[in-house]
């Protein structure tokens, strides 16, 4: 039997939903979309198979940090599609509605009619994705490229979506995420701003504007945007962490600690919270503690990646090449694949400064491999190393 191209997730941590009759309901679409019942976060992280996840229904009693992780997972791995996600909950309180809305989730259904709603959603998704030129299909494919850290595919697919991003807020948001993943924070910011202009209620775009402002070195503006969002909802843990990071960037460490504490009380996502704690240690100049803590981290976002790169550069410029390489080695293990080339390039520069040309060339070769091709800056460094090597010889 052929495996369907697409997959729909039914997330039900409490195993509380009544499934009788669902197979019959889902039967009309079951040959084209597979439905997986997910009962734990572990199952969720294992759910990426040959079928592409395109839709999700989440059974919710109350909004929790687990639900937040699920929605965050979907946004990262699939995209931000209000029409492809639905919460199953009979009587959500406004706070749960708002916390779901932070991830762009706008649809809710009751436990009585959830099967009809899920099948209708699956049919809509299939109809949308049957057109390979549809905005939704292009967004999902772009996000797939981001997840597989395929830089060339990201660049190519991002270009393919640029027209759609002019009139579709979801496309603009997806494009922003792709640009962010390859380190183009200024363009990502513009794309998020475009998404917000098209949909003033689009909170994922607003959150991302705050993050992009921070990444492009504008912490004051980031704080302004993120604080305004706190007015409507002060229980979004990820935003608390972003605010903490922004205050660190400003040098206001007491305020940063306050936000870190608030995020902790909201059971902020482990990885992002750990990242913020490392950033705080770096801001407090407790470098050895920060370096030790890096070992507990599986993946670092672009903000920590840029901080580690900057720290490596500082060590390198101060002639502390060993320290610089330690930082780069640790950073290389945790930064997202698509940003690793930057670490390798900086490591090459450090070795160049240390006049260890052979190792520098090895780093450059790794950098080229990670980037997917050569690029002007890399060529320039390569030429400089070869020239100096020849001079020495």
């Amino acid at each position, binding site marked *: 039997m052929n495996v369907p191209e697409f997959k729909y997730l039914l997330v039900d941590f409490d195993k509380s939903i009544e499934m009788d009759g669902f197979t019959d309901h889902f039967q009309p679409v079951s040959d084209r979309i597979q439905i997986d019942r997910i009962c734990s976060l572990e199952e969720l992280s294992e759910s990426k198979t040959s079928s592409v996840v395109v839709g999700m229904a989440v059974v919710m009693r109350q909004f929790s940090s687990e639900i937040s992780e699920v929605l965050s997972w979907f946004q990262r791995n699939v995209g931000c599609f*209000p029409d492809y996600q639905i*919460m199953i*909950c*009979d*009587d*959500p*309180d*406004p*706070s749960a*509605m*708002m916390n*779901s*809305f932070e991830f762009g*989730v*706008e*649809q*809710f*259904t*009751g436990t009585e*009619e959830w099967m*009809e*709603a899920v099948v*209708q959603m699956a049919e809509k998704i299939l109809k949308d994705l049957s057109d390979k*030129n549809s*905005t939704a299909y292009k967004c999902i494919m772009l996000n797939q490229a981001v997840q597989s850290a395929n830089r060339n595919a990201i660049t190519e697919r991002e270009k393919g979506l640029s027209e*759609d991003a*002019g*009139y*579709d*807020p979801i496309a603009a948001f997806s494009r922003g995420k792709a640009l962010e993943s390859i380190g183009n924070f200024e363009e990502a910011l513009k794309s998020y701003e475009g998404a917000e202009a*098209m*949909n*003033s*209620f*689009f909170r994922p775009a607003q959150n991302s504007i705050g993050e992009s402002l921070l990444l492009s070195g504008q912490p004051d503006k980031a704080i302004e945007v993120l604080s*305004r969002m706190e*007015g*409507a*909802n002060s229980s979004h843990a990820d935003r608390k962490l972003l605010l903490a990071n922004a205050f660190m960037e400003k040098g206001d460490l007491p305020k940063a600690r306050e936000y870190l504490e608030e995020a902790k009380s909201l059971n902020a996502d482990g990885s992002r919270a750990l990242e913020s704690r490392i950033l705080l240690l770096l801001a407090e100049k407790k470098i050895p503690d920060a370096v030790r803590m890096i070992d507990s981290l599986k993946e670092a976002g672009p903000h920590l990646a840029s901080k580690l790169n900057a720290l490596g550069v500082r060590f390198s410029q101060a002639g502390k090449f060993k320290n610089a390489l330690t930082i780069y080695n640790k950073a290389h293990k945790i930064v997202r694949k698509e940003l690793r080339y930057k670490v390798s390039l900086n490591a090459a520069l450090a070795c160049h400064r240390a006049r260890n040309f052979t190792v520098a060339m090895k780093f450059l070769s790794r950098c080229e491999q990670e980037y997917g091709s050569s690029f002007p800056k890399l060529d320039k460094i390569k030429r400089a190393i070869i020239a100096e090597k020849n001079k020495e010889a």
Partner: protein
Amino acid sequence: MTNIITGANMTEMINTLIKHTIVILVSRREKGISLDSFLSNMGFQVFLAESLYEAGKVIEQEMPHLVITEAIVSDGNAVILYDKLQNNEILKKIPILVHIPRKVRQDVELVASRRFAGFILGALDPKSLVSKLNAVIEEQSGFSPYYIDTSSHPFNHDLTVSMNGKVVGQCRGMVVSESGFEIHSTASLLCLPGDKKYSPVVFRAPTNLRSSSGIFNLFPINKVVGKGRLWVSHLPEINLTSNPPPDQLMGNKTVIYFDSMEDRFKQFSHILKAYNVDLVYAPSLNRCISLIRQRPGEIGCAYLHELTNDASGIAWKNEYMKLPSEVKPPLIIGTSSMNAKSTSDVRFLKRPFGMGQFLENIKAAFIRSGELTKGMEKTGYQGISVQYKVSARILGLDESGGIMEVSFPVAAGSPFLFDHKFFRTFLGEDTAVYVESSQKVDGQLLWHVRFRSLEQGASKSRYWSRLVKALEELAEDAELRHSA
């Protein structure tokens, strides 16, 4: 027979969808008056006749779904009526229920000689009458005796229905369209502009506003989908007298909020404050009305988290509707019913709903039709004529219209056109049909819509004969094409 409606609630559902027509033939008018009133109250359309002659005329004109006749009437008896209808190719399908008031052998023997649909012996008992009526109607597949099942007819392949409208601009992030119909909030409509320089797009999540000249349909721009949706963003802005500054999205408005749970109010209030909306709590429905009266013209809209569908709820709604128009704000009601049909006066919001949907509804409710009309005059924009299209399936046709299946409920009175050559030829080019009622299909997110294609007062029998002939010709054409 069609299998589209099944289950225990079949009769109830069909009765909601179709107003069945009954002719009552009695020996003396006063004998039929109470039955007429009883059946009318049950939702039937009733015609009273006191002679065979009068009944014959009404039956030919109205093609009733059932005749209830006394065994003996002033100018004959039920057998004469039966034979007369049996001799008419069209009318012979009508079931006849015979009432035999006197339990005498002679009367019973008389009617036993024919195949009537049923008998009622002795005094009319409402309970047994209802059960007989339901049995007869169910035997007729629940519809009209003239109902022709077209659910698998080839004309249903990719069938769409169209409604005409005119996009006249944008206002506070909403596309504004003028039309003659109200659209349900769950509807998705393909919008086809008449001018080819504008690309087709899909409009979703509408709300409606009644104006002096028609109905405004408002569609959130951020919910518009389609590759060529750029023209929508470039529509001229309709300037309202109360346009908010750009940073105040919702425009500093007050919303009266009724809910039995104060904690929910507090949470909503906190959230909406960030969008410049001031929520005022009404702990009771009466308080809700008095708050509106106390602040005439200041209230952006009223939101009721629930309104019971009992006498008190209906009484409250009636009182609300009596408020002077300059005082009465738009009303949004949260409901768990899948069948609630929004109008421009009352917008139903299916619970549970998402925050985006709630905010969009509140925002749309702040726009007043009078302001829109004035704003449109100022812009002087002529607008873009459009056709709204939705997929549909015609399940059956009968003597005055039919039943179709669509993916959202449609308000009664809405006009639409069938996009198929057969209907354009049969009904006439650009001849609209009108929605009479709609009903949700059990277990599916689909609605059955009863429409009327026959003009009021026109002859049903002539219409039905023409319909049968046209369908036969269509089938012959299809067969010829197939064999060719």
